[in-house]
């Protein structure tokens, strides 16, 4: 059953066996505890209810019994009060005048003697015939035959005396009473305005008899029962009187009946002394209603604070006369038993159920252990077998003969083990095959890379060279057995700017820069434009190592699983290629210059020969008129040459003052038109001006004039001196536009792509330099504008010039100076 520590992969806190046992215990314990608790609760309730009802019944029965006891005593006293001898004596005393002087003196004298205890005086009352009569009644002589007076009742009467209608003592037995009683509560209560009323006085301590007593006062009526003529008063020791009745009722160890009054004073109790109040004053209102009942109170009235069940019932007849009427007081029985005792049966039951329940749980635990062992042993066997399978060490099949699902599971394990063994065998062969394939692939890749004549590096993210091919090894003098990886810049001895650049490109993915380069190359290059600032050498993907120049290119390789991506670098030795390229550029430049020179020469030669010829003609010309005509021709030829030179200068001349100012596009167009009109024959050209008005653009006025003049010249020449020239200006959001449209033959489609090339011209030799459009476009582009040419063959050509407009806020202020500035060059040009 023990597990080897090495075999356990991690510590399990609760084994299967412990869980099974705990589960069984929980399954057994929870219903037991719940059932026990509920049974205890319900049982307690029922016992309480049953006890309460029993206590109530007992209290009622006891109340009835005590009530009868009191009633018997009252009846006996009433019998005395009905005695004719007593009545006639008291009637006589009533009728005897009391108010004359002698009687008063006699009474006070008698009172003094009585108080002093003078024997004759005392004897005159205590031993007079009426007292003797009372004693006879007291001893039971006048009882009906067979009616015996109980000894206890007789003994409990401590005083019995009779007063007349004035409250004066008439006769007495027992202890010596006071002489006058007309001011006492009981006398007044019993006399009750001469009507008479039974008066039972509540329990109190009487010093004469040295005990807690209650009294019964019965009025003595006259023989007509018309009015009270005296009161018969009986003082009874409460404890002695009631204890035989109450103390007899005992049940269990603590159960008993007691009698209390409505103030909670104990009249009789087997446990508490008479005259003491109940220990808990809050209990009194609960147990002294005028109906019988039972209550569950938080104290027992006997000093205990435990929850108690108390039965109670009033004494109906006695209560009616207590202190004169039921409102003034009442007597109640009180039945109580200690809670421990009441609930003892259910507690015993609880204890026994707990004991047997514990025994049952122990049994359950034992059986659970046994059952768990039966289940767990094969499971552990399976677990060890599974571990062995995991290590591939299970040689012997698992042997479990439990005949249940576990046996089936073991068989499944065995089958699985066999299948795994078979599968593993096939898998190993396949892995070997794939490994060989991968190795072959790698070798072939290496061979291919080695066969490539350009150096190739593979670099990881930490700038460590992961692979170099043979060409790289040879180029950079690496030994064949050079251990890799090694830092990239140790392999390539670069100067620091190149190193910096390579590192940037390497970090920034290396490819973005190359794309930028190619996109720039797409813009056609103007061979005449200064090449110095257009392509800085450090933007080329090239670097020098020693005297060699290398063109490089980055490429990204897909990352192998679990490895960082590797970036490849291909180098190409372009030292020779670059040299050839430079030579080619030089040759091209020389060629261009040749064409230019030829063009200029050609352009200038014709008028120059004309001038020479005309000059020779003038030398020999006699006629002044003709000489003047030749001179005019010379001037015209000179002007033409000047135009050629100006055009040429416009192409090559240095652009000075790139500062643009706001100028009026319409005015500049008009000036350009004036320049053209002064130089060309435009008599048959109709000029239409469709000006938008107030169109201003940012430009230099003289250059803008030249560009516009070139365009207008082209238009005029295209129309061959006859047609309509339409000049339109317009202004839209931040852009000023001027359109120069002619009604010439248009440009053939095959020429449209070439019209901006320098020296391209459709005109005849000597008519144009082929630079006009080139110059115009360069100027306009310099200002940030654009020149567009649209041509509809046979209908005419339209040049559309768009130029940036000054910000609207600049307003008229800037307009005036720019206008005056543009005045002087235009004046100079037009002169």
């Amino acid at each position, binding site marked *: 059953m023990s597990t080897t520590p090495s075999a356990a992969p991690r510590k399990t806190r609760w084994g299967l066996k412990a869980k099974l046992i705990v589960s069984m215990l929980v399954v057994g314990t929870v219903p037991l505890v719940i059932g026990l608790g509920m049974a205890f609760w319900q049982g307690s309730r029922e016992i309480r209810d049953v006890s309460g009802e029993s206590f109530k019944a007992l209290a009622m029965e006891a109340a009835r019994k005590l009530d009868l006891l009191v009633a018997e005593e009252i009846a006996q006293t009433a019998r005395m009060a009905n005695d004719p001898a007593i009545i006639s004596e008291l009637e*006589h005393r009533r009728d005897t005048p009391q108010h004359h002087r002698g009687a008063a003196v006699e009474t006070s004298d008698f009172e003094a003697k009585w108080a002093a205890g003078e024997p004759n005086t005392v004897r005159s009352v205590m031993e007079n015939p009426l007292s003797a009569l009372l004693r006879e009644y007291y001893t039971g002589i006048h009882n009906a035959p067979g009616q015996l007076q109980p000894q206890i009742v007789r003994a409990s009467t401590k005083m019995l005396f009779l007063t007349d209608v004035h409250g004066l003592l008439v006769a007495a037995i027992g202890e010596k009473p006071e002489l006058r009683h007309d001011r006492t509560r009981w006398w007044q209560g019993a006399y009750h305005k001469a009507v008479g009323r039974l008066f039972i006085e509540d329990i109190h301590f009487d010093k004469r008899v040295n005990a807690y007593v209650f009294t019964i006062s019965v009025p003595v009526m006259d023989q*007509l029962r*018309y009015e009270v003529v005296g009161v018969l008063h009986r003082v009874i020791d409460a404890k002695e009187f009631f204890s035989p009745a109450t103390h007899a009722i005992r049940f269990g160890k603590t159960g008993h009946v007691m009698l209390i009054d409505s103030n909670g004073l104990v009249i009789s109790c087997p446990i508490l002394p008479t005259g003491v109040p109940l220990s808990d004053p809050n209990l009194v209102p609960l147990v002294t209603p005028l109906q019988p009942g039972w209550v569950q109170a938080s104290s027992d009235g006997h000093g205990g604070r435990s929850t108690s069940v108390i039965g109670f019932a009033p004494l109906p007849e006695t209560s009616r006369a207590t202190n004169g009427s*039921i409102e003034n007081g009442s007597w109640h029985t009180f039945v109580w038993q200690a809670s421990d005792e009441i609930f003892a049966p259910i507690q015993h039951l609880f204890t026994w159920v707990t004991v047997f329940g514990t025994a049952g749980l122990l049994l359950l635990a034992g059986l659970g252990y046994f059952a768990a062992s039966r289940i767990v042993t094969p499971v552990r066997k399976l677990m060890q077998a599974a571990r062995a399978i995991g290590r591939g060490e299970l040689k012997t099949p698992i042997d479990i003969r439990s005949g249940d699902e576990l046996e089936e599971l073991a068989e499944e394990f065995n089958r699985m083990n066999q299948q795994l063994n078979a599968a593993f065998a096939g898998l190993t062969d396949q892995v070997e095959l794939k490994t060989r394939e991968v190795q072959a692939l790698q070798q072939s890749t290496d061979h291919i890379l080695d066969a490539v004549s350009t150096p190739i590096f593979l670099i990881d993210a930490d700038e460590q060279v992961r692979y170099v091919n043979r060409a790289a090894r040879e180029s950079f003098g690496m030994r064949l057995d050079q251990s890799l990886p090694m830092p990239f810049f140790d392999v390539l001895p670069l100067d620091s700017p190149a190193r910096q650049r390579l590192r940037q490109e390497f970090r920034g993915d290396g490819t973005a820069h190359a794309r930028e380069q190619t996109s720039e190359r797409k813009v056609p290059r103007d061979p005449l434009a200064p090449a110095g600032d257009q392509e800085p050498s450090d933007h080329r993907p090239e670097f020098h190592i020693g005297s060699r120049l290398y063109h490089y290119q980055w490429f990204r390789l897909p990352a192998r699983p679990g490895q960082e991506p590797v970036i490849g670098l291909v180098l190409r030795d372009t030292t020779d290629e670059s040299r050839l390229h430079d030579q080619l550029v030089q040759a091209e430049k020389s060629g261009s210059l040749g064409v230019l020179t030829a063009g200029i020469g050609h352009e200038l030669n014709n008028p120059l020969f004309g001038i020479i010829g005309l000059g020779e003609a003038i030398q020999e010309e006699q006629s002044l008129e003709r000489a003047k005509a030749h001179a005019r021709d010379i001037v015209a030829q000179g002007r033409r040459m000047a135009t050629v030179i100006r055009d040429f200068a416009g192409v090559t001349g240095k652009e000075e003052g790139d500062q643009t100012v706001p100028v009026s596009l319409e005015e500049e167009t008009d000036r350009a038109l004036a320049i053209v009109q002064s130089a060309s024959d435009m008599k048959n050209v109709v000029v239409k001006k469709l000006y938008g008005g107030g169109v201003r653009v940012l430009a230099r006025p003289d250059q803008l004039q030249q560009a516009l003049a070139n365009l207008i010249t082209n238009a005029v020449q295209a129309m061959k001196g006859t047609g309509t020239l339409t000049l339109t200006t317009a202004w839209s959001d931040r852009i000023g536009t001027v359109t120069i449209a002619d009604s010439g033959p248009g440009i053939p489609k095959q020429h449209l792509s070439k019209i901006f090339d320098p020296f391209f011209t459709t005109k005849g030799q000597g008519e144009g330099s082929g630079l006009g459009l080139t110059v115009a476009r360069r100027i306009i582009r310099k200002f940030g504008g654009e020149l567009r040419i649209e041509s509809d063959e046979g209908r005419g050509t339209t040049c559309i010039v768009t130029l940036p407009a000054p910000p609207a806020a600049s307003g008229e202020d800037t307009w005036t100076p720019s206008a005056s500035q543009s005045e002087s060059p235009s004046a100079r040009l037009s002169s």
Partner: protein
Amino acid sequence: MDSIRVTVRIAVCAFVIVGCLWGGPSFPPAEEALGAEGIPPDKVADYIHAILEANRTIYTTSIVNRLQEKGLLSATEHWEQDNTLPLPAQFLQHTGRIVAESGRGIRFRLIGLSPIYQRNAPATQFERQALETLRKRPEQPVTGIVTSGKKRYFQAIYADRAVSPVCVSCHNTHPLSPKQDFKLNDVMGAIAITIPLE
């Protein structure tokens, strides 16, 4: 009204004074003269009895019977504890007690030859004989003068019938009742009205 009353008083006074001056020993004593002028005690007792009967009848028929029929409240003997209505007999006894407590001298109570409580038995021979007489001849009250010591009283005793089923059922079922075969309208006892003569 006042002036008439005053006039009558003056006339009476004058008559008495004149009578005294004139009459001397030949005139009857003042009491007798007043008695002759005043209301005879049997008449007074008759008035009182009529009031008592009327009160109790109203109480019995208009209060107890109606409340009992509606099931709201019934009349029981221990009405104080039970918080119910007093029985009609108790009603009369308690009013008698209240009248006695008022100290005016006149008293009345219920008596019977077969009482539930002994205190309601006849107190004197006169009462006993009156009850016997009334049993045979209930229509006429028995009247007479009785004495207690030196005191003299006029007593009128009227037959009392079972006016309500409550009376019959209570007396026939009460454990302390000595006679349990009463029927409605039987003479169950008597109302004794006592008027002091001093």
